[in-house]
Every structure is written in C-alpha cells, then in structure tokens.
C-alpha cells in the first residue's frame, strides 16, 4: 500500500480580487522509504504541495491520504523541514531540539535522550548548551533536521532546505542529510529548484508545470553504477547527465511557455 497518496487534488487561492488556481489534478503515490524530489518553475506551487501533505492547507478538491487515511490536519507522522532553520535564539541547541517534542507533549526525558543520541550520531555532540548564533549555517540546518527527527515522523518534507547555504556546505550537507534520512528509514519529499540536487538525492524526480500546475512527468533514477549511491557518487555517475539534460529541457519548455 502506498504511504502517501494524492487523488485528483486541486487547490485554488482566494483573494477579494481574484481566484488563483495553483494546483490542478495532482495524482501522486509514494511508497514507504522512497525519496522523491520535486522540481518546477518558481511559483508553481511546489511548496504548496508539501503544505497539503503536511495537513496545514486543505485541498479545494480531491483527497490527500497518508497510510490510507485522509489528512485532516497536521499529524505526528509528518515532519517538515523549512528553507531556514528558524532556531529560536532564546533557547540553546538542546532545548531547540525539543521544541517539536514539547509542542506534541511527548515524554521529555525520552525526547531528550533521543535528541542527545542523534546529536552524538550526526556530529553535533558537545554543542547542547551552545546558542544557535554560535553554529555555522550547515550545523544549524542539521540541528533543524534533528529537531524534526526527535518527534519521530515517518515522512520528511524538505522545503528547499539547502537553498540558504553556500555551495560547498550545500554539497556536503546534501550528502549528510541524505544519509541521515536513509539511515533513519524515512520517506522523504524534497522540493528544490536545483536539478542536480533533485537528481542526486532522489529515487524519483517529479517535474511540475507552470500554474495551474500538474505533475508533467516522473523520472525514475536508475544508475548503472549501483542502486545505493550517495548523492556525491550519483553526480559522477554515467547517466546523471542524461537525466539532467532531459529535466532541463522539460523545465525550459515550461519557462518559455510562461513568457
């Protein structure tokens, strides 16, 4: 059974002046443990799609299902990682990690143990009492990921989590985050406008069209070098450029037809 399913999902925004159709007839089915990337022209509603899955936005038409149940609000099964880390300056790192657990009223001792274990495991050991300002951008984004992992979601929604970072940190961190997510066995959906990032991290890349957006095509990433490559290795793999060029051409088509 697919873990995430979208059936004929439409979404329109209403303002006093006009009605804007953002998404039209989105059909989507994601298996547990899959890593999906979504690329598309800017403003096409990629992030909106994540908001729908997270339950923060309700579809105008159609159904969003997680584990066979219709989504009716935010659920502990889904973790959301945003473009900026949004660590709270007034809390130290450890208590930032416990924000989600605190909101969900999880057992504090257990959450704290989990947070410390994840910090140790993913290279943040010893930074519990540091303030967010003392950490580099890459470390802060890793803290943001762990903050989500502490609440033990099955599904991770990643909304351009690397776009605020410099290129070098970006490459390193995408490797790290990919490994963490695979290591934890989570299902992940990554929204990005970076084609290379999309290809190197995902099992499948979905391309969205301009507004009103639909999923215009889906590419399954298959490399001759093996099934379990790190993003770094995939960037060096033979078929990488084939996928890159195909997706580039398709996106270019969407952009031109917008103009």
């Amino acid at each position, binding site marked *: 059974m697919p873990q995430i399913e979208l059936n004929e999902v439409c979404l329109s925004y209403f303002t006093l002046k006009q009605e804007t159709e953002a998404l039209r007839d989105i059909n989507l089915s994601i298996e547990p443990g899959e890593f999906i990337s979504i690329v598309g022209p800017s403003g096409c509603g990629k992030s909106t799609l994540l908001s729908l899955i*997270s339950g*923060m936005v309700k579809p105008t038409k159609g159904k969003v299902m997680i584990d066979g149940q219709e989504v009716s*609000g*935010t*659920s*502990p099964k*889904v*973790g*959301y990682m*945003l*473009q*900026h880390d*949004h660590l*709270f*300056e*007034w*809390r*130290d790192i450890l208590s930032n990690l416990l*924000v*989600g657990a*605190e*909101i*969900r009223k999880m057992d504090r001792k257990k959450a704290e143990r989990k947070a410390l274990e994840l910090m140790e*495991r*993913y*290279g*943040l050991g010893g930074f519990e009492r540091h*303030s967010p300002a*003392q*950490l*580099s951008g*890459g*470390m802060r984004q890793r803290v943001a990921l762990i903050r989500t992992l502490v*609440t033990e979601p099955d599904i991770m929604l990643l909304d351009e989590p690397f776009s605020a970072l410099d290129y070098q940190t970006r490459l*390193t961190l995408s*490797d*790290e985050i990919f*490994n*963490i997510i695979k*290591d934890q066995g989570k299902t992940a959906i990554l929204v990005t406008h970076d084609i290379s990032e999309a290809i190197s991290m995902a099992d499948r890349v979905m391309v969205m069209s301009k507004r009103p957006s639909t999923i215009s095509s889906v590419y399954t990433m298959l490399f001759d070098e093996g099934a379990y490559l*790190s993003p*770094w290795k995939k960037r060096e793999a033979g078929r990488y450029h084939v996928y890159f060029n195909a997706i580039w051409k398709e996106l270019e088509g969407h952009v031109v037809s917008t103009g």
Partner: protein
Amino acid sequence: MSSLPARESSAVLSEQRTEQPAVALISNKSASPQYAAYLRLQKRKLWLIRLSRIAVFVLFLAIWELAAAMQWVNPMLTSRPSSMVTAFQELAFEGELFRHTWITGLETIIGIVVSMVLGTLIAVLFWWSTFASRVLEPYVVVLNALPKVALGPIFYIWLGDRYSVYGMAVAISIIVTIIMIESGFKEISKTKLKLMESFGATRSQMLTMVLLPASVPNFIATLKVNVGLTLVGVIMGEFLSSKAGLGYLITYGGQVFQMNMVMVSIAMLALLSIVLYSLVDLLGRYALKKNHYE
C-alpha cells in the same frame, strides 16, 4: 554518516575553530605595542568624554550662580544653585522632599507595570483575534492621537485626587505600549510560526513558545519608552489634582512664587528619572542575558 566519516569530523573541527570570537584571541598579555597604544588612545578618549560631561554640568551651574550673583538675571525669577542647596536642606528636613519623591517614584512604577501588563494583554488579544484587531483598530488610532491631558478632569471626577494620577499615567503610556508590542508581534517571522504549525502547535503554544520570548528585546524597548511617558503622565496627574508628589511641589512652589522649591523639585525629578531609567536598563540586561540574547 558512514560514507564520509573523515569529512564529517574535519568539518566539525573547523567550525569549532571559527567559533572563537576574534577578540578573545588577542589577550592583553600578548598584545603588540601598536595594539597597546591603540587601547591607551581609546581609553584616553573615553575619559575625555566623561570629564567633559562633568565639566559641562559644573560650567552650567557656575554661570547660573555667577549670573544671579552679578544681577545679570533676577534670582527671584531664576533661583540660583547656592540657594537651591539651602532650599534642598530645608525641604529635605521639614518639607518632606523625599516623601514627595518617593510618592512620585512609586506612582510611576505602578503606572509602568499596569500599562505594560494591560498593554501586552490587549496586544495579545489583537494578535489572537484578527476580528477584534480590525474592529478596534480605528479606536486605537483615535486614542493615540487624542491629547490624554484633556481627559484630566474626567479622571479627577471618576477616580478622585489620589487615583486620577494613575489614570493619567496609564492613559498616556498604554496606547504606545499596545502599538509597540503589537508591531513587535507582527515583525516576528511568519515562517517561525509556520514551523510551530508544522508541529501542530496551538495558538497558545505559539504565544508562549515564540511570540513572548521573541518579544523580550521589544518589551525592554517599550519599557524604556514607558519610563519617560509614564513620568509625564504622573507629573501631569499631580499638576491637576494631587496633594503630594513632585508634581504637586512644583505647582505649589509656582503658586507661592518659591522658585527655589520649583527648581529643587525639578532637580529631584531629573534624578528620579535617571534612577528609574537605570533600573529598567539593568532589568533589560538581565532579561536579555537570561534569554541568550547576548
């Protein structure tokens, strides 16, 4: 992490290294002679500023005294520092100057606390209910523009001569408090609240976990503005109705043509505002430190 253990650890190490604030690396012991000279120069400049401040004050008093002594101005109208000292002694021992100062100070502190608490509650209400905020918005605008002094007689009739002072103090400072705190709430990034929402946070969790702690610097700024405004309100209230306080002493001194009393009261008022401002400043530093803002 299994795929890149080496890179991982080196990245963390280099990040730790850059974390050291640059200033801490240069301790005074290892400072170069040029740096020592720079420090000396800066220190000298600082002292020059401090001394000049005192000099301005002393010069001001000296010219005042001289002008009165040489009859350039009429000391009946301007008073003079030397007779202010005598007047201070008289007032302090017989005229209950300190009691009046204490009363004004206490009224101000109570006024500040009341308008901070009430103002914050109203700002929270406006954040909580967009409906309430939109309904009440024009009233806040009008009340902000209205000169609160005009309400003096109303407070006097409703609250009596003692409590009308608080009415005036709160009336003057609460509207600004509401506006400042509310705009502070609005500046807190929407995405921080989106993060909270993604964890399924309720509105009261957003309030206590994000809005209030994120507003600490804004609370302190508001508090500092309120020291000045509430003092205006308290003195205004005392002018209008009260039987005690520095505002009362100033009007009384004016009515009996005792410029010494007026001047001494004003000097005490200046002193009081310095003390209150310093208290708020200390409180602010403590709150910022406690909330990791420094």
